Structure formats: C-alpha cells, structure tokens
C-alpha cells in the first residue's frame, strides 16, 4: 500500500517536473537576460545625475537602480505573503501557506541587500554608514519582523499550527510595508523620496533630478526585478511542494 503511494507520488512529481521544465527554463533565461540588461543600463547607459558634483557621490548614485529595484522586490514579496496569508486563513489550503513562506524568504533576501546597499550609498552621500532616520529605522524593524516570521515557523513543529500562526504573523507584519513606503512622506527624513509627487528635496540629502533616461532605467530595473521575483517564486514554490510531498511520504513509511 505504502509502496504504491510512494510510486504514484513519485510519478506525479516526475510528471509535474517534466511539464514544468519548459516554463522554469523560459522564466530563468528571461530573468537572467533582463537582470544583465538592467545591470548594463544602471552602470553604463544611464546618465550621471547632473546636480551631484563629487565623483564618489556621482558614482554612488548609480546604486539607486538596484537599491530601489531590490526594495520594490522586497515590498512586493511581503505584500504577496500578506495576501497569501489571508487566502490561507480563509481557505485553509496548503498552497497559500507555501506561497507565503516562499515569498517571505525571497523578500527577506532582497530586503537584506536593500539595507546593506543603502548603508554603502549613505557613506559618500551622508558621510555616515548609518543613521537612525525614520525610513532606515522602519526598514530595520521590517527586516527584523520577517526574520521573526521564519524563526516563529521554525519554532513550531505542528504543520497546521505553523501555517496558521505564520499566516496571522505575516498578515500583521505586512502593515510594516505601507508604513515603510510612507515614512519618507510623513516624517522629516534625510532619505530622498524621488518617486513622489512634490518630493522632499529640501530636507533630504543626496536627492537628484530624475531625467528621462534615469526614469527609463529605473522603470526597466523595476520590470527586471519583478520578473526575477516571479522566477524565484516559481522555483521556490516547486521546491517547497516537493519538500512537503517527501515529508509526507517519509511519515507514511515511518508509521505504516
């Protein structure tokens, strides 16, 4: 009985892997090309910001494209996780728990690059590696909240409780995303708000004018990062589904 189950699950898994191979390959190649093109545009194609005179500050401004791209990816991932968590709480379908977990993992990885690249950009622009500015503080809290999400899941053994507690936590943690987005608009901050109606150029440091080519490069980077996120989600979800199938089969073999 158990052997039949093992074989049928294995066959299903192999069949799904075979049919999904082409989609996975297409997504991976497309996102690889887009990310390399984004790198070219950010480092070479995009013009220098005209108002920045110090060479170090001018070069560092190019961090902007991947810094914002990663931040966009992180915010998108955390919002997807919150939505998937709501869907899990409503439907109790395992699929949404897998989506939430996968999305948080990806978002956390890229939010880490946002914080590190922001700190590196701050040095030539603000002359400090770090300052407890509202945006930077909320970003750190946001990052810690999602580290907490993974720790919470790791601390619970029961899969149902893990999914239920994780969903409630991810939903609550999701509120840090709009708060983070609005931090540079609501409070006095030295972090530039370049994508904002009536930006805060007077208070911010390192702000620069968005010429047409800078805007095009930024838009291209945002698209490239979105495709990159979809690709990573595709692979991470497949991996988590396989992981859960293997765990179920192990349990069946162990307790039969």
């Amino acid at each position: 009985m158990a052997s039949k189950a093992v074989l049928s699950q294995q066959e299903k898994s192999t069949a799904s892997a075979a049919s999904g191979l082409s989609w996975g390959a297409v997504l991976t190649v497309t996102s690889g090309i887009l990310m390399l093109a984004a790198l070219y545009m950010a480092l070479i194609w995009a013009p220098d910001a005209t108002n920045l005179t110090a060479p170090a500050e001018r070069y560092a401004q190019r961090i902007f494209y991947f810094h914002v791209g990663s931040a966009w990816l992180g915010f998108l991932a955390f919002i997807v996780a919150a939505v998937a968590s709501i869907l899990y709480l409503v439907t109790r379908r395992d699929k949404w728990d897998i989506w939430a977990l996968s999305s948080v993992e990806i978002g956390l990885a890229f939010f880490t690059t946002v914080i590190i690249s922001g700190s590196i950009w701050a040095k030539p622009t603000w002359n400090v590696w770090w300052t407890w500015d509202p945006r930077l503080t909320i970003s750190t809290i946001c990052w810690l909240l999602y580290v907490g999400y993974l720790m919470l899941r790791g601390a619970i053994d029961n899969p149902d409780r893990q999914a239920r507690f994780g969903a409630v936590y991810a939903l609550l943690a999701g509120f840090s995303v709009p708060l983070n987005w609005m931090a540079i608009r609501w409070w006095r901050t030295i972090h530039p708000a370049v994508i904002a109606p009536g930006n805060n150029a007077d208070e911010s440091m390192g702000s620069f004018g968005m010429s047409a080519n800078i805007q095009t490069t930024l838009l291209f980077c945002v698209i490239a990062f979105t495709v990159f996120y979809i690709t990573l989600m595709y692979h991470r979800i497949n991996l988590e589904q396989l992981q859960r199938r293997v765990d179920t089969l192990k349990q069946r073999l162990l307790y039969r």
Partner: protein
Amino acid sequence: MGDTVYLAAAYGVFWLVSFIFIYSLVGRQRSLQKDVELLEQLAQDEARPE
C-alpha cells in the same frame, strides 16, 4: 579609496546575496533528490516479492 569603490561594493553585495540564495535553493533541491531516490529504493524493495 577610489571613487567607484562604493558602487562596486553595493553591486557586489547584491549579486553575492542573489547567488547565495540561488545556491541554497540548488542545495535544497539536491538534498531532496537524494531523499526521493531513497524513497524510490525503499518502495522498490517493498514491491519485490519475498
């Protein structure tokens, strides 16, 4: 320090974190593949007549 060092460091961090994440996915995939092979072997042993 050169003027481009901050730029190189920031992009270096981005690609490093991306590769570490992708490498961890590949590592987990390999480990699962081993588990699947083991389960397959167990299933075959069980299906074999005594």
